[in-house]
């Protein structure tokens, strides 16, 4: 069973703008793929549909075989807990420490302190920020903030990670490090879908690429295409 499946999905925003048109593709369990396309091509919209931040106008979006159109409003939070998201504007909270930022999904899911501390430290350790847990995220550099966002996305051990421009305004070296983290998570079986228009970076890595143009599928490149 595919992890994520789009079946002839269209999305038009109120006001009539057509962001996605008749889009079909699959992301397999444990697969890592890039989503590219010009600005306004519909990358963020696609990710929002998977997160149930938006609903498809036509067609079906299935995650783990569940048709998202059938998910009741009260069940949306539980769906979101199974997906980790990373955004370019990292959406960190500056009124609390790095530790508390990362702990948020666990508090929501109902972890007790001891379990919670262990998991938060493990996630921070993975992104190399264990020493900064007590700091306020505002004191961190852009790359470090992005890594806090990643730690928060993975702390709940989601089976699927979505990232929207995770390397947006980072230099190539930092961008490479961030992508390296996603590769690591993918290495332990997590499905990863990264939206990015950093073609240079994408081309340096050997993963499937899904291209969007004006909301339509504009060609795919399978993994192995770089060296092959």
């Amino acid at each position, binding site marked *: 069973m595919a992890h994520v499946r789009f079946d002839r999905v269209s999305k038009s925003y109120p006001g009539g703008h057509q962001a996605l048109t008749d889009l079909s593709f699959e992301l397999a369990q444990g697969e890592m793929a890039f989503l590219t396309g010009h600005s306004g091509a519909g990358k963020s919209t696609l990710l929002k549909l998977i997160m149930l931040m938006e609903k498809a106008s036509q067609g079906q979006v299935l995650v783990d075989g569940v048709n998202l159109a059938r998910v009741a409003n009260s069940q949306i939070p539980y769906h979101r*807990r199974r997906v980790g998201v990373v955004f370019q504007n990292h959406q960190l909270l500056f009124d609390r420490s790095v530790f508390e930022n990362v702990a*948020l*999904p666990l508090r*929501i899911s109902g972890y007790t302190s001891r379990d919670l501390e262990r998991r938060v430290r493990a996630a921070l350790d993975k992104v190399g920020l264990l020493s900064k847990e007590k700091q306020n995220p505002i004191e961190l550099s852009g790359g470090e903030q992005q890594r806090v966002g990643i730690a928060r996305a993975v702390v709940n*051990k989601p089976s699927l990670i979505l990232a929207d421009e995770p390397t947006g305004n980072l230099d190539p070296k930092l961008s490479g490090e961030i992508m390296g983290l996603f590769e690591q998570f993918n290495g332990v079986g997590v499905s990863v879908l990264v939206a990015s228009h950093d073609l240079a970076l994408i081309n340096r890595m050997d993963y499937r690429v899904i291209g969007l143009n004006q909301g339509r599928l504009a060609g795919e490149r399978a993994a192995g295409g770089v060296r092959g």
Partner: protein
Amino acid sequence: MAKPSASNQQSRVTMQSQGSAYIQHHKLMAVDSLKRLLAAPAASLMTWLVLAIALSLPMTLYVALENVKQLSRNWDQSSQISVYLKKGVMSRFADELTAEIADFPNVSSAVYISPEQALKEFSVSTGLSDVIFGLDDNPLPGVISVIPRLNSQDENGLEQLQQKLEALRHVDSVQLDLIWVKRLYQFMELGQRLVWALAALLGLAVLLIIGNTIRLSIENRRDEIRVVKLVGGTDAFVRRPFLYTGLWFGLGGGIIAWILLSIGLFWLSGPVEQLISLYGSDFSLKGLGFSDSLLLIFDGVILGWLGAWLAVSRHLSTIEP
């Protein structure tokens, strides 16, 4: 292909640990929302004071009314009972009866007014002496004027005394001079309704004040709400800190209202008691009882929580990730 989904693993939170995490989160939110209020002491104090005033006004009226009630019960004692004798009772029997009544334990004094005396008083007070002296027969009965002595706990004392007097020989009818007391009771009935109306209005005001305050704090925490919803926070989770904020506002308002009222009562009790002692009544100002105090504070808490709940259910749904 299909690897075992990691989702099974991540949702392995036992019921028990989830229960204790739930309580832990409640505690965390309770403390956190209180800290937030105390972090802006001036603004919070203002809100608390406004709430306290709104809560204490109906309570003030209520306490005043309770005191008037108590006072009027004291005044029952000084009310007068007129015992009308049957016509033609000889003054000898009337005097004996008067002495007998005066000996009742709950009678303070009894004075006999003969028909002749009554007629004289009547003609003097009305100026109708010519008419009255033209009558063949004195139409007025003899009256024994009785001043009861009742203790204020005994609400039925007056009626029992009345029944006892009515059962006596020679007695035609007994009349309690209670018209003004009845008026007072009518006024108090009105006052009581006023208390309810005022309580309802100011309760509504408290809801609106809290609702508005919570709305602002929701506005201030928009980003946080968005992130919490994004990472899977349920509505209950998002609502919780705001409900606690409303609860703290209500509790603080209730406690300050109680303090204000207590100070006010203490400040008034001296002069009021002095004033009333001038009228020969021993009276002590009744303060807020334990249950009244509890009610006041509890009302604050309930209204605070409810106001927050209304604000949150109105505004939270407008914030989506």
